[in-house]
């Protein structure tokens, strides 16, 4: 690939992006969709299987009632219509991740249709329209052997574990999302974040992206600004973290923009996302042309969710995340902008838990949004996966409030905890980190003033703006252990 990448914003000055998101959610039922096998994650291979999910002759599927109810709840929470009658469909394909040689899915009769989910980015509301929500069975997991690093290309053979085969999987498909402009990547991330929170509040899935219980395919196309005809889209498969959703959109915008600028065409294809580089590469374009020969599943009778059942489930829906968040903001004195920033950075729950662990709302927000999100980005991990607990953040915040740590020292403590050096107090103890005492501070202030007599003179003449460099010098001399406010007072006092 020799295409050069145009900068994201530059491309979006000239092209309008069109997004589409397909999200797969593994339901948190105790058993699989059509048999009584456990759905627990992490069991040894092929220990959660039976004749039905292995597709052995003579076995017959029976639908798990909880999976239907969970799917209807998801549809209702996304403001969808719930079908009065629909059928499962057989999707035929020859790939060993399904032992039956077909997957039971839904085709032209999904359980839920025509909904929406609202998200807010940069103070602007976007309505993402949902085309359909349908239920299907998940596939088995394949290990590809003999090729480079587990890739399917070049493998000599594959090994299949069917524990995951038959776990209920809900697919949520949006309509094309237009009008996002430069916010395309953030809207995509905000949508998946919001969807994850809705699903978690419903209690229908553990929505753990790192374990694959929430997986995302990102469709993107560009069209010249002002055009009405949609461009050629690519589908980036299995984008498995919130950060990656945003990065995948950014990358595809830049890649497609560079191609279009060079007069090349965008190839309609599926692409793979690479977590390490944040780039995509072409997958099999054959898939596009595949005919799955869908037909109504003869082994399962149609579904006809009774209206009483649907209304009963509607009555059990929790309040939407937006309402819950507004109440949270009110109680803690956060503004709408604070709230949006915390939601889209994925730290709202962490901030809430840090407050519950004893830190003030302002400090809790400041720690996560102002420091730890940045650290997570530097370390290339999700902020929720940083090796620091909310209790540890609350403890550091408490020591900062009581004056036992300066902000600089507090950040050093946080870094040491994240680096695995130990718990907060142990790290402070082992490094001997403590705020500089009054005597130490006076020595440092006098030395700094003596070293820069010109500045000291300015301060003496009443130029308070000149204090900054001296505060900086004091901070440096004390290794960040000086209380900046007290240092400032001392500088003014000692200079005159």
């Amino acid at each position, binding site marked *: 690939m020799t295409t050069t990448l145009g900068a994201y914003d530059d491309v979006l000055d000239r092209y309008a992006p069109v997004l589409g998101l397909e999200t797969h959610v593994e339901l948190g039922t105790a*058993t699989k969709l059509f048999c009584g096998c456990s759905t627990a994650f992490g069991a040894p*291979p092929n220990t959660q299987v039976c004749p039905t999910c292995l597709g052995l002759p003579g076995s017959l599927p029976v639908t798990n*009632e909880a999976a239907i109810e969970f799917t209807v709840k998801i549809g209702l929470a996304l403001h969808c219509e719930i079908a009065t009658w629909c059928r499962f469909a057989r999707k035929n394909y020859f790939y060993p991740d399904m032992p039956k040689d077909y997957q039971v899915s839904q085709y032209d009769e999904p359980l839920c249709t025509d909904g929406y989910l609202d998200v807010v980015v940069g103070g602007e509301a976007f309505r993402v329209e949902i085309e359909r929500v349908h239920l299907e069975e998940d596939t088995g997991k394949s290990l590809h052997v003999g090729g480079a690093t587990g890739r399917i290309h070049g493998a000599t053979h594959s090994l299949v574990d069917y524990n995951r085969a038959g776990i209920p999987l809900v697919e949520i498909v949006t309509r094309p999302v237009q009008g996002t402009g430069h916010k395309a990547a953030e809207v995509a991330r905000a949508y998946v974040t919001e969807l994850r929170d809705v699903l978690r509040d419903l209690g229908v899935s553990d929505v753990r992206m790192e374990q694959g219980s929430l997986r995302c395919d990102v469709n993107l196309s560009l069209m010249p600004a002002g055009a009405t005809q949609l461009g050629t889209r690519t589908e980036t498969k299995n984008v498995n973290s919130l950060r990656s959703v945003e990065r995948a959109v950014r990358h595809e915008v830049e890649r497609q923009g560079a191609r279009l600028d060079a007069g090349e065409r965008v190839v309609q294809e599926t692409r793979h996302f690479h977590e390490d580089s944040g780039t995509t590469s072409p997958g099999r374009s054959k898939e596009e042309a595949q005919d799955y020969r869908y037909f109504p599943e003869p082994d399962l*009778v149609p579904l006809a969710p009774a209206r009483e059942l649907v209304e009963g489930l509607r009555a059990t829906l929790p309040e939407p995340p937006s309402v819950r968040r507004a109440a949270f903001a009110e109680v803690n004195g956060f503004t709408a902008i604070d709230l949006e920033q915390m939601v889209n950075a994925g730290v709202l729950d962490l901030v809430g838990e840090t407050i519950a662990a004893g830190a003030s709302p302002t400090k809790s927000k400041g720690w996560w949004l102002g420091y730890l999100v940045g650290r997570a980005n530097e370390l290339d991990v999700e902020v929720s996966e940083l090796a620091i607990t909310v209790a540890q953040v609350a403890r550091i915040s408490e020591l900062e409030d009581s004056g036992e740590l300066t902000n600089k020292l507090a950040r050093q403590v946080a870094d040491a905890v994240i680096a695995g050096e130990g718990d907060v107090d142990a790290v402070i103890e082992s490094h001997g980190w403590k705020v500089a005492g009054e005597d130490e501070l006076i020595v440092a202030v006098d030395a700094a003033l003596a070293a820069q007599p010109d500045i000291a003179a300015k301060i003496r003449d009443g130029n308070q703006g000149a204090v900054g460099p001296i505060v900086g010098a004091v901070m440096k001399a004390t290794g960040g252990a000086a209380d900046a406010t007290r240092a400032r007072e001392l500088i003014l006092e000692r200079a005159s």
Partner: protein
Amino acid sequence: MSDSELDAMAGQLDVILSAVGRVQQVAAADIPPTSHAVPLTNVFRPDTAAAGLSAEEALAAAPAAEQDRFRVPRILDDE
């Protein structure tokens, strides 16, 4: 095909076409195709676990197994 085979087939084809004709009389545009012969909906089971197979049992009939997994031929041809 021999003439005698063709004669036999012609007769059978006639029977098949007249059967199709009879179906077409009944299958008006407002009658949906039948996918299920029994008029049942909503057959469910509760979400309770049932014992399945052990890995050993599951793999017993597999043509090949490795690391407690089903061993299958390579999926993609070399490109």
